[in-house]
């Protein structure tokens, strides 16, 4: 069974783009270990020869016509922007 180390937890948090405060690390480690210990039961199930299931519906392609539906209400989209300039989203410089 997997034992999660502090380094591993920090690596995972980094992948998920989350900061963990020092006081959070111990609690999260404990919670994660608890839940993983329980989740490990999936490794006891007899699944030999079984396919994976990705979704509950029959896996088949659903086609539709590629028709353009115009959405003209730019204003209502931009009203949610934390920062904007004219009709654009504003972000910090990407290339330093």
């Amino acid at each position, binding site marked *: 069974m997997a034992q999660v180390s502090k380094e591993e937890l920090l690596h995972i948090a980094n992948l998920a783009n989350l900061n963990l405060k020092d006081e959070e690390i111990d609690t999260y480690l404990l919670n994660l270990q608890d839940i993983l210990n329980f989740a490990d039961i999936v490794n006891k199930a007899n699944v030999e020869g079984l396919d*994976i299931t990705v979704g509950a519906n029959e896996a088949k392609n659903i086609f539709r016509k590629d028709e353009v539906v115009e959405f003209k209400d730019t204003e209502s989209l931009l009203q949610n922007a934390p920062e904007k300039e004219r009709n654009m989203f504003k972000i910090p410089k990407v290339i330093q």
Partner: protein
Amino acid sequence: MDITELTVHELQEKLKNSELTSYDITKAYTDKIQEKEKDVQAFVTELSEEALKQAKEIDEKRKAGEELSNLAGIPIGIKDIICTKGVRTTCSSKMLENFIAPYDATVMEKVNAEGLIDLGKLNMDEFAMGGSTEYSYFKKTRNPWNLNKVPGGSSGGSAAAVAAGLVPWALGTDTGGSIRQPASFCGIVGLKPTYGLVSRYGVVAFASSLDQVGPMTKDVTDCAMLLNIIAGRDEKDTTSVDNGDKDYVKSLKNDVKGLKIGVPKEYFGEGINSEVKQKLEEAIERYKKLGAIVEECSLDIADYALATYYIVACAEASSNLGRFDGIRYGHRTENFTNLKELYRNSRSEGFGDEVKRRIILGTYVLSSGYYDAYYKKAQQVRTLVMNEFSKLFEKYDVLLTPTSPTVAFDVGSKTNNPLEMYLADICTVSVNIAGLPGISVPCGVDSQGMPIGMQLIGNRFKEETILNAAYTFEQDYKFREKYKPQFVK
């Protein structure tokens, strides 16, 4: 007559006979919200003023002889995960505290087309992750039967609002039990439809292969009526399925003679509260009396399904919640010097503890080295769970279990132990894993007067079968005539 105690089908009748106007009905509800919301705390956003205005407009149209749906002018409450154009949709998260949806979810378009009036957006666990509505960023909703107890979750605001008479009916969403468990805790009816029956377009995604929108109502007839409105294929959700415009109200026949009900014994064992068990056994006896054929059966997958659920749901959530980056909408930190810091700090400030916990768990099970051991294994176990259900449905029309192993618990009693909170979903999650329909219907109260729910599970797209089974029980048992929420303080 207390208007807020009437079911929607009763209100519809009174609208039709001109005994009541939409304004009378809407006003009764906004008054009730005035009176009780301070105790119940069900709403994130109240729309009383707008609702009364709409009600007047609909009354005028009706008076002028304009053709309207026969439900036009009846109010509804909406879980705050469903996008409503021009109205805040927060998912009870700081991340979306100020998010105003630029468009309506498909279910909202359908609700609006019917002329239903939105009374407000209802509280929930943040991003639907939780079973008590205590993980809301804004407030803790209380159980109208006892205000010291949780209403369940994640659709706890919807369940409490319906039970307290703050809305006549509501929409919720269910990823692992989030409609059925709060319905059970609050003594109302809640249906999770078959995966694909209802469009998910415009519903903030938690776990896309499990999420479904469904009705939360006072009785089974209302439940069938609301399902009629929201079900059906939607071009904008490729996983949605054409149901051939079924009329679910017509399936309510008040007859279960010959209906084959399987009772999986594993759901009545260890961990099930004895009073819950007793009420379920009484319900089984009632079904026998009503002519159903009830048999014990075995469905030994509950633990596997729960573990699979937390692996799959968290994996999907970690991916779905990647979109919250503080750029186009949602919380943006003030503390950043570059783009990476903007992402990280916005997400870390915007998400609550439980959401972060699940993103981390989801990222972990998808990360290299653990993918095969957890995620892939869970997907195989998902096949196993579906196969086990399929076998049972060769023999039975309906499976009967408790909705939750316990009645509503005390506020604050489980928030420090995430795993314990997860275990409370043991009876409901397997239904989502297999994509089946499940309904919770009240079947009694315990010695403290807290409601107990019975879950009826059907085969894929057999909503009619479980609705009729629930209806027949309800007509004979008459829960609503016997018990009412007491707002115990």
